[in-house]
């Protein structure tokens, strides 16, 4: 193996390669194209993967919403079409009976689902924004970024039913002056004064909520709108390692039981399972990644076979040259090594150029997708994948080089020299 580290070997190979330019270029293009496709495809797929990941970043991946609808089956003497109402104590029961649950946030809103938005006023300015009644635990399920100096609703707010509010960016812009600090300021929600304790940053990639949402303590909301123990819907997060679809089923079964609904009444409670939706999308993008891996490797393979093919032809063309080399004292091993190393060297060069071009294309894609409304971020190929592809190419290049190399030494030097 010492010949590999011998400078002379490489000079000889470099000489042979650089002086047969057309052959070299054609040979290189095959593998270059292969690795380019591989890098570009898998990088692009990774970009989509990252895009979906960041889309779901702002919300717990195994979370779901559950709300009440009306029954579609008669049960225990109740008629069909009974309007159901979720209650605060349902949360406690669920927490006790379903161990897979991590967080339950009962929520109420005014301004969605048919109710008119609250009218918000401050001095001579006013507007309508949806108002949410929330517990602090809600931020565990859907994290809210709060601007410096502010905070979200805390437990004391709940206990004392404080009249405090967390407002949105848009609300701040519309109700406060530009250089005015909203924290500590007062706004009027449906004729009741609230002190602003925080401004939440609107995250467009979250896909839920808006930049005008106002959050107030659940207990304050209850008093303000006289909702009693009614809950609009539950935001629920399950533990990371559980089957969210099954948890969803359990929750609904429990709710049917609590609210005396027929056990088979599927329409009594509505739900939206983010975890399931997320898994589906991740599965889709995993599929794309796998596909691009297969396509990329197949293309590399085709490229390497192309190199083998061209080297095979070139060995035929160079029969005489190889005969002369052997007449001058090249051993069969030296001739064989030269052909194999030419193959490996060409594969490597092509691979490296392909990787560079692929990376350039990815950064181009990245700059083009910077500000589009499509989940696409940071298309990259992990270094191990790149190194793996290079390793595959070197191995394949060696294996495919063996064929022409064997052919080169199978011809006797005397026959090689006779060839005209």
């Amino acid at each position, binding site marked *: 193996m010492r010949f590999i580290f011998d400078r002379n070997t490489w000079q000889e190979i470099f000489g042979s390669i650089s002086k047969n330019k057309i052959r070299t270029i054609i040979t290189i293009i095959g593998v270059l194209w292969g690795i380019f496709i591989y890098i570009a495809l898998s990088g692009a797929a990774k970009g989509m993967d990252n895009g979906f990941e960041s889309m779901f970043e702002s919300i717990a991946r195994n979370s779901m919403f559950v709300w009440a609808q009306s029954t579609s089956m008669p049960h225990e003497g109740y008629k069909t079409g009974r309007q159901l109402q979720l209650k605060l104590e349902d949360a406690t029961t669920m927490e006790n009976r379903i161990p897979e649950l991590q967080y339950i946030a009962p929520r109420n809103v005014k301004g969605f689902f048919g109710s008119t938005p609250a009218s918000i006023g401050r001095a001579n300015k006013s507007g309508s924004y949806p108002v949410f009644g929330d517990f602090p635990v809600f931020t565990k399920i859907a994290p809210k970024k709060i601007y410096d100096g502010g905070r979200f609703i805390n437990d004391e707010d709940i206990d004392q039913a404080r009249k405090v509010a967390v407002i949105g960016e848009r609300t701040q812009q519309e109700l406060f002056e530009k250089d005015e600090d909203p924290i500590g300021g007062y706004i009027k929600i449906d004729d009741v004064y609230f002190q602003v304790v925080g401004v939440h940053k609107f995250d467009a990639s979250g896909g839920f909520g808006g930049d005008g949402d106002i959050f107030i303590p659940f207990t304050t909301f209850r008093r303000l709108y006289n909702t009693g123990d009614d809950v609009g819907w539950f935001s629920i997060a399950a533990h990371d390692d559980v089957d969210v679809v099954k948890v969803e089923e359990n929750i609904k079964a429990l709710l049917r039981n609590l609210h005396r609904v027929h056990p088979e009444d599927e329409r009594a409670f509505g739900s939206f399972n983010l975890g399931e939706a997320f898994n589906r999308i991740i599965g889709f993008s995993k599929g794309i990644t796998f596909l691009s891996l297969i396509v990329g490797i197949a293309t590399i393979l085709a490229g390497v076979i192309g190199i083998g093919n061209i080297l095979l032809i070139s060995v035929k063309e160079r029969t005489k040259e190889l005969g002369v*080399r052997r007449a*001058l*004292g090249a051993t069969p091993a030296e001739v064989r090594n030269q052909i194999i190393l030419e193959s490996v060297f060409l594969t490597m060069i092509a691979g490296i150029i392909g990787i560079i071009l692929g990376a350039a294309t990815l950064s181009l894609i990245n700059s083009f997708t910077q500000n589009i409304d499509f989940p696409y971020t940071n298309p990259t190929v992990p270094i191990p994948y790149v190194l793996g592809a290079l390793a595959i190419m070197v191995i394949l290049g060696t294996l495919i080089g063996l064929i022409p190399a064997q052919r080169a030494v199978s011809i006797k030097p005397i026959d090689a020299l006779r060839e005209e």
Partner: protein
Amino acid sequence: MIEIKDLHKSYKMGSNSLHVLKGINFSVKEGELVAIMGSSGSGKSTLLNILGMLDEANSGEYTLDGVPIKDLNETKAAKYRNKFLGFVFQSFNLINYKNAMENVALPLYYQKMGRKERQEKALKYLGQVGLTEWATHLPNELSGGQKQRVAIARAMAAEPKVLLADEPTGALDSTTSFEVMDLIQKINDQGNTILVVTHEDDIAHMCKRIVHLKDGVIVKDEKVKQVRASEYV
């Protein structure tokens, strides 16, 4: 230098066997310039190929510089060729993508000589054949005579024991042929052993000894009075 005893060689052509060499006995001393003559089919090229270890005899003994040449595998043959022999071919057999100097340096590469040393030595031998200025030219930029001189420089660069020339003037016009023979004579004058295969009488007479081959046997082995090629140039 070369010792050959009862050398036989036959080629199998399908079911027929062609007996090319039928018991050759001959020896060459150091410093000799021997012409091997014969018409085509006489076996002269076959003999040279066996001497050059490019081909193997069926039977007989071959000793080169005291080393018995037998049981050759390709690797061993390659090593012996590199160490003992220099080849000059009728069709020059230069490597077309290497320039004159690189062609001359090639056998030195297989002697594992370093690049710099190789190039220096190649230039020295190119100088001896009068082609220093053509060192960086590719073979297709050289005339036939120049190509053959590069080939001779390449054969000499490895400092072989014996120089084997197979019809070295076969592809050249007579003026160029004499130039090449002049060069071969000069190399011989320095004490090198040279074997020249030819079918041309005047070329053969520029050697010191002529071995006539006919139908696979030596029919005549004579010392001749050398005609200096320089007289014709």
